């Protein structure tokens, strides 16, 4: 069968599947990060350019927990989102909440600036060469799938990311809390006039979106080295994903995130030179054909 695939498409099957898996993993990070951005944008109307730095913080907190407190990967999965999410709540309270009545541009400039400051502080403290973070023992090793070796940790990343994406989607679409969120995204003023403390909901939503970025950071720590630039490298692509999916669309960010990761992986197989730009080319085409994005409401 593998020979048939190779005969059909003219590339070795292990290369194809290897790149598909890499694409799926990148897609998992795109999906989780653009999901957090979508949740935040929907309610706060702020494009959170600090998101990349918060992803990086998630990874660094995991590293610190291990290096300084001896707390391993699973503790980091729990504590890092809480710690980084809490720092997000403070940012929202102290800075971002002052901008809701102003133009989008102010939120963009503020969060971009905050992101640069956070990144600078970490570069100052930890240098830019990157720190290693080991794959937890339970998830190290690889499965032999017959046609390729699949590192267990990479499979775990895809499964965990899918879990967090679906859980977030379910909370927003199927629960009472989600109904408050959707309603407040449409008309916050009226939701508040029904007796719901919307300012507090906004703060907690920002914290939750940031916590999602931190979860992605913990998942990423053993794959990429933990370094201060890891967020800014990724976030540029994530913003393209958000634009393609449709700003603020929850389902759009999940589907587009995974989909574009796979497209990027396939491009590496068939036209490696284009793989770094394919997402931006798709973004340009989508913007021309559907300015509101694939899943956005015009």
């Amino acid at each position: 069968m593998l020979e048939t695939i190779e005969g059909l498409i003219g590339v070795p099957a292990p290369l194809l599947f290897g790149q598909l898996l890499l694409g799926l993993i990148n897609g998992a990070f795109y999906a989780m990060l653009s999901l957090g951005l979508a949740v935040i944008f929907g309610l706060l109307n702020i494009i959170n350019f600090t998101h990349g730095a918060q992803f990086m913080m998630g990874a660094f907190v995991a590293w610190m927990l291990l290096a300084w407190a001896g707390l391993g990967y699973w503790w980091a999965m729990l504590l890092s989102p809480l710690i980084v999410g809490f720092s997000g709540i403070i940012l929202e309270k102290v800075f971002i909440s002052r901008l809701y009545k102003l133009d989008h541009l102010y939120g963009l400039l503020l969060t971009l600036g905050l992101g640069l400051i956070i990144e600078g502080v970490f570069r100052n403290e930890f240098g830019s060469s990157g720190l290693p973070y080991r794959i937890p023992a339970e998830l190290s090793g690889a499965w032999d799938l017959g046609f390729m070796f699949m590192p267990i940790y990479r499979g775990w990343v895809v499964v965990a990311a899918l879990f967090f994406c679906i859980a977030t989607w379910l909370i927003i679409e199927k629960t009472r809390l989600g109904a408050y969120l959707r309603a407040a995204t449409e008309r916050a003023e009226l939701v508040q006039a029904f007796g719901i403390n919307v300012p507090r909901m906004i703060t907690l939503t920002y914290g939750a979106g940031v916590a999602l970025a931190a979860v992605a950071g913990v998942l990423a720590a053993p794959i990429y080295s933990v370094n201060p630039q890891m967020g800014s490298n990724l976030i540029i692509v994530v913003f393209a994903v958000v634009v393609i999916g449709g700003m603020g669309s929850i389902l759009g960010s999940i589907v587009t995130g995974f989909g574009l990761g796979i497209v990027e992986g396939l491009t590496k197989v068939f036209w490696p030179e284009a793989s770094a730009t394919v997402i931006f080319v798709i973004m340009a085409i989508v913007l021309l054909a559907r300015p509101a994005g694939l899943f956005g409401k015009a």
Partner: protein
Amino acid sequence: MADTTGKPLLEVKDLEAWYGESHILHGVGIEVHPGEVVTLLGRNGAGKTTTLRAIMGLVGRRRGSIKYNDRETIGLRSDLIARAGIAYCPEERGIFASLNVTENLMLPPTVAPGGLGIDEIYKLFPNLKERANSQGTKLSGGEQQMLAIARILRTGAKLLLLDEPTEGLAPVIVQQIGAMIREIKARGFTVLLVEQNFRFAQTVADRHYVMEHGRVVDMVGNDELLTSLDRLHQYLGV
């Protein structure tokens, strides 16, 4: 007949309100007693909607006094005003497109005991049950209005602020809304109603305040309405 001799449920005094730089209300005074249905009549731009929004805490800035159940609410945020027991149904109805009918209905949290149970709501508004899973904004205008009122009857709020519930609806639906307002009055709710159509107001209300240029300029009891028609025509320009 409602008891208008005791303490008012809602007492508004010298209410001024602003949207940004525009000064809209210039000292509004109204009283609504428990169990009453009171309307605010007046032309477009007289300040009726702004009065409701100011009571609900939805204007940029406000000054004066708004006492509900003898408690001053002028300094409260709108969610705390709602929690005190006042519910608001906006002119554009405020049905959420991203929520289905049931989610729209269940959205406002309970603020006090004594609201209508879901069975009672469905008995009053059978359409809402049939269309439970439809997108809220896919309902007809009349059904959306019913939904907008039904969801605040659930919450236990005793004072309902209704902003032009009959606007843009067919006469047969307007009659249904009239019947519904009489029904909720019979159940002991208190209603402050903004209306352009005083013929409709006449069928549901105990008293009418007339507003002009951000002030209350007159008050007419429903029993005096027929003898005051000339005066009202002058105010309302109908």
